[in-house]
């Protein structure tokens, strides 16, 4: 054993260093961001730490702290402007940044230019490298089940929905980016103080791609993935050498093939292959089920202040020259169940998007619970106690039903990550109560028995119910339902009506957008009708159903066929 360690010391240390780099990529991938600046962060930290060691002779632990901080700060500073960019643009911006860093390192005197820096004392020992790796792994092990970890997963699955659940998307991305920078910095410090020599070429685009390779091949579904990916792919060349196959092109060749195969056929990566492991873990988290999911009211957020819950005054919205809404004004009072109907393209979803902060009104005044919305981001509106469902369901497809609903509870859940990280027992209690709350909401919509299944496996109607449960988990004062009955059959719509009534009975105010007029007439105490962006009727269901303008809008004829609009139900 001792012999083995001595012979393979270098390989073993590199397995750990590359694992740390893989974790830095993992940090952004789990938030759904593809950044390729990892090598640049590592490079900046490697140069800084090497210069500190060479010129000032600082002790190694201090150098590590400085290197990690430098990586984190640079990542934060880069993240502030670039994280507004989506998908490919973020990837391109970070590639550009990486290239800039390389060019700067190549041209400065202090970095030694193309020749690089040497000699750097070799101080990293095997156990230190693995301690660093273990710390990174521990960080993500503690992160995943926390509120923060759940939020990052939600962000990865669907950014718009995550924002609508109250998650401050920008802050979450910055967190992921900063962690990524810190870990990249750590790998850079370890690298420079092990190889004794650094040059700009070691931190180019290829190195960033290596980080991606390790993280993706290892798998992003579990915190062990980067350890596996970094270890496996660092060990392979050694194996190849043992077998006596020497060819410079062979290593990139099989690396590329492995990456390609993983992306196409095993998106879960190496850890995804060990599925049973994941399942047994999931079971233990099912412990929350024991918290007696007796159908008890998910108590809505208490009233704050007086006046209407929602007040719109003279609201208009235009896209280019097209007016989607014009002069719309109404109030929703506490405890009401208001239906909003209108033909396709009447502006119903636009209206909901304005009330939830996903879009801004072009003109007019929008107030939610007494707060006037002026470019207020959706997550802030949510924190006022507004929850919504989407016309086209926006569930977090790969998360379990329970996790989906728990993300919906973002507004009322307490942060647990920092306490989890240091194993404070209160964190576990808070998490159990979050999951218990999620279970109560699942029970309300009748999906508790399928809490562990991923959302994508649910039928269309069940997905709609799951969205309602998710919205309820934030204990909203106002619930906006965007065509919840679309695509439902008669029986499902009937049970949906019962569900809406039972939610209303708990004191939640509801704004229901629906095409199914029968459902609206049955559940709502008041009905608004939009037509071509204008409000043409506002009143009790019976009255609205007889309104001649409403009938004309729906049927395009004069009011001589009043019987065609369904009467208010029982």
């Amino acid at each position, binding site marked *: 054993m001792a012999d083995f360690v001595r012979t393979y010391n270098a390989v073993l240390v590199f397995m750990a260093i590359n694992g740390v780099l893989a974790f830095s990529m993992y940090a952004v991938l789990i938030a*759904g961001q*593809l950044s390729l600046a990892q090598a640049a962060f590592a490079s900046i930290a490697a140069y800084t730490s090497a210069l500190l060691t060479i010129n000032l002779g600082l002790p190694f632990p201090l150098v590590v702290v400085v290197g990690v901080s430098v990586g984190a700060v640079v990542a934060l500073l880069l993240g502030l*402007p*670039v994280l507004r*960019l989506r*998908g*490919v*643009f973020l*990837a*391109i*911006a970070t*590639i*550009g*940044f990486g*290239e*800039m860093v390389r*060019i*700067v390192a*190549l*041209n400065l005197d202090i970095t030694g230019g193309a020749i690089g820096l040497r000699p750097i004392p070799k101080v990293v020992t095997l156990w230190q490298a693995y301690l660093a790796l273990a710390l990174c792994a521990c960080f993500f092990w503690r992160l995943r089940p926390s509120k923060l970890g759940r939020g990052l997963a939600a962000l990865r699955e669907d950014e*718009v929905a995550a924002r609508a659940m109250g998650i401050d998307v920008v802050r979450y991305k910055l967190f992921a980016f900063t962690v990524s920078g810190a870990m990249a910095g750590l790998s850079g410090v370890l690298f420079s103080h092990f190889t004794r020599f650094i040059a700009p070429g070691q931190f180019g*685009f*290829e190195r960033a*791609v290596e980080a*991606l390779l390790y993280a*993706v091949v290892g798998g992003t579904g579990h915190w062990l993935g980067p350890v596996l990916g970094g270890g496996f792919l660092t060990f392979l060349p050694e194996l190849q050498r043992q077998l006596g196959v020497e*060819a*410079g*092109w*062979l*290593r*990139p*060749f099989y*690396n*590329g*093939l492995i*990456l*390609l195969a993983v*992306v*196409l056929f095993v*998106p879960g990566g190496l850890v995804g292959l060990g599925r049973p492991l994941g399942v047994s873990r999931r079971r233990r988290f099912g412990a929350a089920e024991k918290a007696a999911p007796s159908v008890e009211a998910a108590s809505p957020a208490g009233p704050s202040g007086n006046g209407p819950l929602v007040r719109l005054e003279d609201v208009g919205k235009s*896209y280019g020259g097209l007016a989607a809404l014009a002069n719309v004004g109404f109030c929703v009072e506490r405890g009401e169940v208001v239906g909003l109907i209108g033909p396709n393209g009447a502006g119903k*979803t636009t209206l909901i*998007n304005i009330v939830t902060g*996903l*879009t801004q009104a072009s003109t007019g005044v929008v107030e939610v619970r007494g707060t006037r919305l002026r470019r207020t981001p959706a997550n802030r509106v949510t924190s006022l106690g507004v929850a919504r469902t989407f016309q086209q369901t926006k569930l977090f*497809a790969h998360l379990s039903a329970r996790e989906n609903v728990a993300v919906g509870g973002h507004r009322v859940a307490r942060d647990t990550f920092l306490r989890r990280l240091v194993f404070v027992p209160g964190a576990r209690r808070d998490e159990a109560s979050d999951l218990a709350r999620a279970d109560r909401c699942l029970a309300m919509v009748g999906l508790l028995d399928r809490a562990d299944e991923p959302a994508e496996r649910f039928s269309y109607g069940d997905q709609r119910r799951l969205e309602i449960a998710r919205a309820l988990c934030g204990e909203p004062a106002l619930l906006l339902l965007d065509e919840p009955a679309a695509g439902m059959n008669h029986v499902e719509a009937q049970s949906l009506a019962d569900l809406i009534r039972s939610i209303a009975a708990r004191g939640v105010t509801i704004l229901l957008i629906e095409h199914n007029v029968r459902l609206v007439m049955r559940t709502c105490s008041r009905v608004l009708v939009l037509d071509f962006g204008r409000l043409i009727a506002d009143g009790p269901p019976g009255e609205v159903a007889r309104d001649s303008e409403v009938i004309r809008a729906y049927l395009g004829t004069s009011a001589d066929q009043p019987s065609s609009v369904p009467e208010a139900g029982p």
Partner: protein
Amino acid sequence: MQQLVNGIFLGSIYALFAMGYTLVFGVLDLLNLAHQAVFMLGAFIGWLLAVEFGWPLWAAVIGAVAAGAILGLLIERIAFAPLRGRPDAHFAGLISSIALAIVMVAVALGIFGPQTLRFPPGSFPSARVSFAGATVSVLQLVILAVAVTMMLGLNWLVASTRLGRAMRAVAENPRAARVLGINVERVTLITFMLSSALGSTAGILFALAFNSIRVEMGLAIELKGLAVIIVGGMGSLPGAMLGGLLLGLAEVFSVARIGSGWRDVVAFGLLFAILLLRPHGLLGRKRVREV
């Protein structure tokens, strides 16, 4: 004046390369990071045909273009087609195309080795033309002519042909295009082939212009190509042309002013400025995001 001519010359090659990039992005909303490998292989295949097989230069160039189209077909089939319908197709496509690029570069390394290949002396006509105080070789003129012809040809194709109309329809809304009877699969495949043909042409022209072919040549231009399409506006063909020319000129003049070591900082400085100030680029369209 000489600088201006050199800048336009370099810029036309950048533009040609970037148009291939932006074509796939504009039509299919995918970023194909294997494009650089096509550029590199185009140069190698051209060299192989001209030097090893003894083809005349013009035939070697055509051969490289055709090979590029085939590579495009392979890239689409291997790295992108299997992902279709997956919710993370954009993300995964980015990664799978990087993976395929790694494989292609490794294959080139295995076949051609790490050394720089050159065309033997006397391969090119040596005539030179002078006008308005600048000197250009006939070879440069021919390269410029090929690049400009291909750019105009592509613009015409997209703007005025039935195929171009189908491509624009797919770009607008693939599902609606399918409903209207457009064979989206076929349009996708052709888009990739055209894109790669352009990339491969840029590769062989670059090789002729600088008489230097290396396995790493794709990487440098990949990063510049990204800068070009960002500056010009993602998905905009005229934007890619404008961006290519701008970058070519900026590089040539910055070498003269601030030294060759810092040349590439200009490209990425430009990239950052545009990304932060005008993310849809100089000539790109703003895309309205659906909620």
